[in-house]
């Protein structure tokens, strides 16, 4: 059982432009510090892009879970 509650989830599977990372950024901008955002991505590049950006931007990657359809659910907590 995850120790977090997701406040917002975006289904960005198949999103090419602006893409899952930008959808995550958009959702984080709309969130308060401490809130948790999840984004579903089917783009393999997200497995590098999203953790990389989350680390540089100073937020917290809580989880990167593989889904049955091959997509990944990235769960991020807004830290600042």
């Amino acid at each position, binding site marked *: 059982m995850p120790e977090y509650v997701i406040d*917002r989830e*975006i*289904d*960005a*599977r*198949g*999103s*090419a*432009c*602006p*893409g*899952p*990372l*930008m*959808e995550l*950024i*958009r*959702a984080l*901008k*709309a969130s308060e510090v401490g809130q948790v955002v999840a984004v579903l991505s089917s*783009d393999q*590049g997200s497995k590098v*892009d999203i953790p*990389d*950006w989350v680390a*540089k*931007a100073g937020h917290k990657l809580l989880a990167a879970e593989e889904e049955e359809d091959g997509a990944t659910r990235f769960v991020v907590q807004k830290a600042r």
Partner: protein
Amino acid sequence: MQDIVVVGGGVGGTVTANLLAEELAAELAAGQVRLRLITDQPDHVYKPAFLYRAFGRTSPPAYRRPQRELLHPAVELIVDPVRRVEVDPRRVAVESDRTFPYDYLVLAAGSRVVPERTPGLGEAGEQFYTEEGASRLYRRLEQFAAGTIVVSVIGVPHMCPVAPLEMAFMLDAFFRERGRRDQVEIVYTYPINRCHSNPAIAQWAAPELEARHIRVETFFNVERIDPARKVIETMEGTELPFDLLIGIPEHAAPAFLEASGLTKDGWVPTDRHTLEVKGQEGMWAVGDVTDLPVSKAGSVAHYQAATVAANLAARVRGLPPVARYNGKTFCFIETGSDAGTYVEFDYDHPPKPVRASRWIHWAKLAYNQTYWLTARGVV
């Protein structure tokens, strides 16, 4: 009688209304259906022209046409800004206090720039996302002799994701043609660690920017602009001075949608295939207003309009709606003053820019003229 109301007179609303008028011609003629389009201005404006306007390469007669001329005669046109969309009773209220009932509603009101959400941007920056902004920018570019021009992507999302790259390329061409490119430094900034949100487009664009000696600053998230010092301050703690700032501002859905309780985190929650508004009955959303992870681009609204018109018409006839939007998007990308490329993609097929050529640029110029056939629902 069943009432259909389309809110918005841009490409999404206009194409939806025209396709509905064709499809439901018999029902409209028999008085079984009434079809209305509500918009806030009498002219239809082709917004991609603003990029050319910023370089003095087009003027209003080329990109403005009376909305009435573009609409099928069976569409009743109401020119009156919407104040509120009500769901109980189902009606749209406009500024002049009139109300229009609906059984089926299409939200196609577009997006707007909100530079005021970035401190200092309205005072210190130019932008080309409005007609007035593009005209102002043209006057400043014509007089710009030397210094640093910064093209900064601030807002996420924003209309036309490739337009900032186009602006940078066209600035380079503009000053080369005038023999003063060596006196102008062009800097392009982007919020993540590449020059565009899509990896394939970024991979294509990076060497194009380098070949034109356009400096790129990535992982650049604008926090505020200092108008007195003419400096951009970022969340990363850096500062970038400028002589001319062309900002791509934050965007928002029209205020009346939020006031009507139809948005979540600023945009209308929409099903990615059927384009129905989530949690609402008999309501669809088209184009920029949606919260979908697709480009805020005219082509998206154009393709989505076909899905909505087909499904809405089916509902009017008591048939199951089967049309689905597959994420289809098409964008031209100008790479200077005489060449261009394009990308075409959908939910299942990512973009792959092709080699830029004069032919594609001319195809874009041709489309700028034939767009009016799209608006009419013909192409």
